[in-house]
């Protein structure tokens, strides 16, 4: 077990080093210049050159890469070119909306997907099953920006129940900020539920035909107990994996939703950093997201141990 954790930890470091290198190279290869973007449309070539110099962008790439690695090792992700603050501070400011948005979205997706998926598998081939499969296809294929605009139109503009966009002003309480997250969370929750629903159904179908289910039933066990205690528990590993992966994807991938709802989250930060070529923010944010992704995967693997005693490392 300890060896396994150590191995996984070393693997994580290697993965993060590779990510840091690839992101650094890609960001530098991509056309566009942060100095030119920052100075605006009427800047002269001399202004741009002077700012590039000040930002250290005229140094050889290897030197820049060395500086970057040195910063990472000391737990510093550098300073944003545009935001007038360290990358870590910028990420810290974005952590709250992204964390709650991901949490709410996953909760909504799970609450939708698990019961429907379980019942769909149990009543395989029934009208309910067909309806839920159609629903899942709809949820998987609906563009999130379209769903977001419909929700805004109905629940924010017509009914006035929720804010149209944003994350509150300077004096808003946590409760008010969370209120801003409901429509985006529903949007992402619905879209994400499709995958979890289909995994739940497939995974349940796999176990429902197993011998131990037949045995449980032949012992006269109540049907809900058979389904939830025996079948569902054993079907949980792939479901948990897909929930974990969805959560990891949401941290960085809620870009469209964050843009439509004007949420200052990590996805939004990465997109604006890419548009502005804010190299330190792109590098830092992607590194942190990669680290979270790796950690979530690690946590899922650890959960396997708890859920299924047969899993050994």
């Amino acid at each position, binding site marked *: 077990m300890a060896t396994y954790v150590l191995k996984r930890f070393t693997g994580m470091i290697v993965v993060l080093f590779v990510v840091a290198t690839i992101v650094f190279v890609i960001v530098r290869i*991509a*056309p*566009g*210049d*942060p100095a*030119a*973007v*920052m*100075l*605006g*449309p*009427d*800047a*002269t*070539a*001399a*202004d*741009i050159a002077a700012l590039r110099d*000040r930002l250290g962008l005229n140094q050889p790439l290897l030197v820049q890469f060395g500086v970057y690695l040195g910063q990472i090792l000391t737990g510093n992700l550098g300073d944003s070119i*545009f*935001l*007038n*603050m360290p990358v870590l501070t*910028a990420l810290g*400011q974005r952590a709250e909306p992204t964390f709650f948005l991901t949490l709410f979205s996953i909760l909504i997706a799970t609450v939708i997907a698990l019961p429907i998926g379980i019942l769909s598998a149990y009543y395989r081939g029934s009208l309910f099953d067909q309806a839920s499969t159609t629903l899942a296809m709809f949820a998987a294929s609906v563009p999130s920006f379209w769903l977001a*605009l419909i929700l*805004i*139109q109905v629940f*924010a*503009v017509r*009914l*006035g*129940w*929720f*804010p*149209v*966009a*944003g*994350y*509150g*002003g*300077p*004096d*808003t309480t946590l409760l*008010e900020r969370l*209120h*801003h997250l409901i429509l985006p969370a529903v949007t992402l929750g619905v879209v994400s539920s499709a995958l979890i629903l289909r995994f739940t159904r497939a995974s349940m179908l796999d176990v429902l035909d197993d011998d131990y289910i037949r045995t449980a039933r032949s012992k006269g066990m109540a049907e809900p107990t058979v389904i939830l205690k025996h079948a569902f528990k054993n079907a949980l590993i792939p479901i948990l994996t897909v929930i974990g992966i969805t959560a990891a994807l949401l941290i960085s991938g809620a870009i469209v939703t964050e*843009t*439509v*709802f*004007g949420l*200052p989250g990590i996805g*939004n*930060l990465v997109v*604006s950093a890419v*548009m*502005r*070529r804010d190299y330190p923010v792109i590098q830092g944010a992607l590194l942190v997201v990669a680290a979270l992704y790796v950690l979530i995967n690690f946590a899922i693997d650890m959960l396997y141990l708890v859920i299924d005693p047969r899993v050994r490392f």
Partner: protein
Amino acid sequence: MAFGGLVTSGAAAMAQDEPGGIITVATIGEPNTLDPMAATGDLLGMVTQHFLETLYTFDKEWNVTPLLAADLPEISNDGKTVTIPLRQGIKFHNGKTMTADDVVASLERWLKIASRGQLVADKVEKVEATDANTVTISLSAPFGPLPALLAFNNSAAVILPKETLAEPLTEFIGTGPFMLKERRPDQYIQLVRFEDYQPLEGEADGFGGRREALLDEVRFVPVPDANTRVEGAVAGQYDYAELLPVESYDRLTGQTEPMLTESFGWPMFIMNTKQGVMTDQTMRKAVQALQNSDDLMLAAFGEERFFKVDGALYPEGYVWRNETGVEAYNQGDVEKAKSLAEQAGYDGEPIRILTSRQYEFHYKMAQVLDAYLKSAGLNSQLDVVDWATLVQRRADPALWDIFITHSPFLPDPALIAPLPASYPGWWSTPEKEELLTALNTETDLAKRQEIWSDIQGLIYEQAPFYKVGDFAALAAKSPKVEGFEASPWPYFWNVSIAK
């Protein structure tokens, strides 16, 4: 529902509790910096003009008028000494009183780092405090546009306390009617009323005259998605939302109302006069002859109420307006273009149109332009990139032949971006340089108008760029917002919210 209402209209609720109220303004995004000297950009100028002020500004008719200066600059007979009297007792947001030393240090920084400042920097011999309340700028040659440059909020000569001047600027302490309280990037920029602000006497007059912070707070909220800005305005979440898609005009009802600012700006096709196929003036004339601005503007802006087809480089109401050369505008003559291309010896070289979708109307115009060029047998190619890439690529003359951009109508023609030879396009002919120097060194308005008229004629004759037309900007304003005056750079002093 009550809960929803409570939170969605948080700003409105606050407005009722406090005397002046809060206004929430939805902007197209987050400014790249809050240092208006360091960069150009309309959003930056629009936001920062509320807390950082310049010596001069513009009145309703776009005349230069004093702001932190006590009077218009006194210019010596030889045009080389510009004396600026300062208002006394002006307080910065940190409580310090503005001195001539602060002004000198700020202007020196502006000359050094601002792209507009650099237009004059090589002619400035000295900026000095001649006494506690007077600043004198000594020039090696007269420079007519200097007052306009000092007044402009873009790449602006803002006055900051000397001790806060740094590279990059980290404190944004000015003298404006509002002061910066907090900036949360991509969430809000919060400005609060500056109690010690000393407004000018008299009536408000455009950006000039009396400025009063009637509101307690102005909050700029970046909302990059245009549809969300529309819906937020309709729902009453934003008191003002800028730059909306014109097609949403009829949607702006209920808690908001549409505001159309006519002649807001002008799109232009810049031609590469330094390298490639467009260096040939006859080829540029061929491209010019092809353009049908009615089609181009219709494709880009949808309905005629949102644009004007007008060849003059300034719209009605500006002292700079003239009709010189406009017969070369809006020709839409394919046969003439073909004949000109033949005359130029065009042999099918690609004509690369560099554009982006950052501004959707640029892209729509690029498509029409592409079709026009092809209709005349010219081998055009669209190169669609993101804005950051476009800004980089346009700096390299080897990479493009025509690129698309736009500008608001600037208060002085010397500020028009593609005029200096350093701007991508690199228009530099002896005739143009002579006229531009004359425009820059002349200080008499009537004479400058004549020179500008000649420059406009030369633009049509040498075709370094093509003005496509005038477009209107659509904004949404809550009916509760009172005292608001439409302008290319909306401002919220002298504005209040009806209770």
